[in-house]
């Protein structure tokens, strides 16, 4: 839909909701378009075209809330959807904490965050790239004899959020990806690994052949993986695995976990949750990044801030609802966190940290979600490499790593500078002093 049409549809829905008795209302209208191609076995296996649209409305009537969404954007359907939201609000119980975020918090001045860069990529070029990417994986090593495919994709989306305070915010973004999953085999056993790149600008993507090559080499590096003995050990999380550790912190400091008292970081504000060399900042205005936005899911202005300052918890992740539940003010995190930057403590990455380890485990991948946010108990499947005297000895698999997140965070020794920018968490390798590794 055209920009003016979207805006007028959104405004019409807000007016309609008010006429039907809503005290407050908020509307999101979005549309997106893109395609992806996948090469496998040296030929193109799938071509997918995407074209999506959606309308959603939330209404508040005497502090009761109702929400409805549809992807049928005909006039009748939009009216019906608005009426549905109102009818749900007439059945749900009132909550004093419900409502839009306060009007003085709205992000009235748009900031251009450079998030919209359509990729001038035709289907033929995309197919060639996917084929070359897979080819690079297959040629990286004779042991790479198969793949789960190489994918090249691009997506462009337009979204508009408007609420009855009169706030209107538009977000136009693009996202491009190249990924490859290689399969290596030796002596009848197989291992796979992947590599990918995602960016808002095509020129920020890693070279497709390098991605394929890396996927292939990584898959080979896991061949011959074995179990290790059950023991306590230092554990080094690769940047890919380290992001998950940070996400456990963000889950535990999210407003919903806090007001439900379902968090291992309950009542931890201004307390040391990590060693004092750890600092995490939230940077919602980084140019061209995945976690960038000038307003949150409620139209609230976002601001750079410090979440963990020299090991001390300084901020929660709150929406207006969870903030009111806690007697606090929203932090502009309706919909989740924005870019999180974990400051490195070292001018080196994974390889430099390995050199400092006497013995220990490098974890490249984690599987299964064995994390209890309520009490911090942590137990996950892992694979990676065993390190002795500062060098990788052999690949490891079929083991678990376990501990309690409260202790794990306190045992962070080093954070590398090998940070990846593929997502909203910008974090390098993390070395943890002492975890239980279960194997044989």
């Amino acid at each position: 839909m055209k920009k003016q049409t979207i805006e007028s549809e959104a405004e019409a829905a807000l007016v309609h909701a008010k006429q039907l008795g809503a005290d407050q209302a908020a509307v999101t209208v979005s549309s997106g378009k893109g395609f992806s191609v996948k090469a496998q076995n040296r030929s193109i296996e799938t071509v997918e075209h995407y074209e999506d649209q959606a309308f959603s409305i939330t209404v508040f009537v005497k502090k009761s809330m109702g929400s409805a969404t549809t992807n049928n954007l005909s006039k009748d359907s939009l009216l019906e959807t608005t009426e549905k939201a109102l009818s749900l609000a007439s059945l749900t119980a009132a909550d004093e904490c419900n409502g839009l975020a306060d009007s003085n918090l709205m992000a009235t001045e748009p900031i251009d965050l450079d998030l919209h860069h359509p990729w001038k990529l035709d289907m033929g070029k995309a197919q060639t790239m996917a084929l070359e990417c897979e080819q690079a994986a297959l040629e990286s090593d004779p042991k790479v004899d198969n793949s789960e495919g190489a994918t090249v994709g691009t997506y462009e989306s337009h979204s508009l959020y408007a609420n009855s305070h009169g706030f209107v915010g538009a977000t136009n973004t693009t996202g491009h990806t190249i990924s490859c999953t290689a399969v290596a085999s030796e002596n009848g056993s197989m291992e796979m690994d992947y590599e990918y790149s995602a960016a808002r600008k095509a020129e920020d993507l890693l070279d497709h052949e390098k991605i394929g090559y890396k996927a292939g080499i990584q898959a080979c590096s896991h061949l011959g993986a074995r179990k290790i003995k059950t023991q306590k050990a230092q554990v080094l999380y690769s940047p890919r695995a380290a992001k998950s550790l940070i996400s456990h912190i963000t889950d535990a400091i999210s407003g919903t976990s806090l007001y439900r008292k379902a968090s291992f970081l309950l009542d931890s504000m201004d307390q040391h949750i990590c060693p004092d060399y750890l600092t995490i900042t939230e940077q919602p205005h980084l140019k061209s990044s995945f976690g960038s936005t000038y307003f949150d899911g409620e139209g609230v202005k976002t601001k750079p801030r410090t979440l963990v300052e020299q090991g001390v918890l300084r901020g929660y992740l709150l929406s207006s609802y969870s903030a009111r539940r806690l007697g606090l003010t929203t932090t502009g995190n309706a919909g989740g966190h924005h870019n999180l930057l974990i400051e490195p403590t070292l001018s080196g990455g994974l390889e430099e940290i390995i050199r400092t380890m006497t013995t220990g485990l490098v974890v490249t991948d984690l599987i299964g979600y064995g994390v209890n946010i309520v009490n911090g108990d942590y137990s996950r499947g892992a694979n990676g490499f065993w390190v002795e005297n500062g060098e990788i000895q052999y690949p490891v698999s079929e083991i678990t790593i376990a501990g309690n997140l409260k202790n794990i965070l306190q045992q962070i020794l080093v954070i590398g500078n090998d940070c990846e920018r593929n997502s909203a968490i910008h974090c390098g390798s993390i070395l943890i002093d002492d975890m239980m590794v279960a194997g044989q």
Partner: protein
Amino acid sequence: MAEDRTTINDPDIALSKAKSILLDPFNLDDHDLSLMLSTLLSSGGEMGDIYFQAISHESWTLEDREVKNSVHSNRQGVGFRSILGEKSGLAYSEVFEKESLLQAAKAAGTIATDRKQMTYRVNPKTSQQILYPLLNPINSLVDENKVKLLRSIDASARARDHRVKEVVAMLSGNYQVVLVVSHEGELKADIRPLVRLGVSVIVEANGRRERGSSGGGGRHGYEFFDQDMLKNYAAEAVDQALINLEAIDAPAGEMTVVLGSGWPGVLVHEAIGHGLEGDFNRKKTSAFSGLMGEKVASSICTVVDDGTLEGQRGSLNIDDEGEETQRTVLIENGRLCNYMQDKLNAKLMGSHSTGNGRRESYSTQTIPRMTNTFMMAGPHEHDEIIQSVDSGLYAKNFGGGQVDITSGKFVFSASEAYLIKHGKLDAPVKGAMLIGDGPSALKQISMVGNNLALDPGVGNCGKEGQTIPVNVGQPTMRIENLTVGGTN
């Protein structure tokens, strides 16, 4: 608002109802379908389909003793797939106008580059399999009673123990109307109801807080949840949380593990199920590739995928390619005898679809997926299996699991577990991840119980970014040398 049972089980109803929802309002008829099909396949596609779908979903959430949140959503679209050899093209339209639909058909077809002129005749086909009532579950109960239902489960949970501090319960209903036109012109329909109720509680004692959860559901209207069932869900969630209050650190290392019946069938799903999906085996990326006819499990193991169980969450009258679902024996007495197939992978592997072609929605590819997957019962009593273990772990209930298809390594996380000492249950232990190697774990199954049970109907399975409802199941089972990921 409850619909009349005599009409909702009539197979002809599915087709006429689907047409009245997906074609008639947009003035689309058989002639339009033929035109779309010839546009889709005009570039040389050998196979393909058109998939019309309307999805309605609602959820009601209780928290702080009140239902304060309710969300309703409607989604509709038409997916076009064209297949030539191993290649497949997908495009869809969410706009039900002829021009948009033909444009999507053409886009999906461009995977092939030949030109051919064909005319297709569309033949409506009635599916004979009716495994669930053809109703909209959202209309099966008035909204006020959905609120009452959630309040009653909250009251049960709080009445069960004074240490219950928080109760969060969610009731959801999903209604899908599907119309599939195959490349042969066959037109088939399905009406799919699905309900689910989940309850999660937090208990607190002496400053320690723990969570417990329970729930159930299936392909029914909301009347499925009777008062006894609600009480049971509440009791299960509370009891599990109270047990966790007492739990000591879980052990770490290899040991004998006894898995309970029902939901622990996540093991069967992860360790075996995914590895036997046709696509991974055609591409030879599964740890089970090339093992057809071979002994892959101990001979007491028989594993089945059965999409024809009445009212179960993973059941379907027809799969998303219009094929009737069936009962497929995957492993018989330890020997691998079948893969789960969709049409594409079956054709490329020289076999037949097993009715396992599923897609999350019109906007995603159809791939081989599980339905209800379980291990058949064996000879042993549950107690006999526990008594046989001198030292080990009894994992009664589980959270989710995950598998690396290629290496065969799988995990699943225990949410309620006990130590076994000298044949008796001992202290409860904290949640821990269990990890194993699919092909070797199956050979380490040493006892299978006679108490086969399916999970209560809450499971989802994710593959290639697509989430679909499934069931898992198994009887009590003893496995040697599984690695338990505790801290002790």
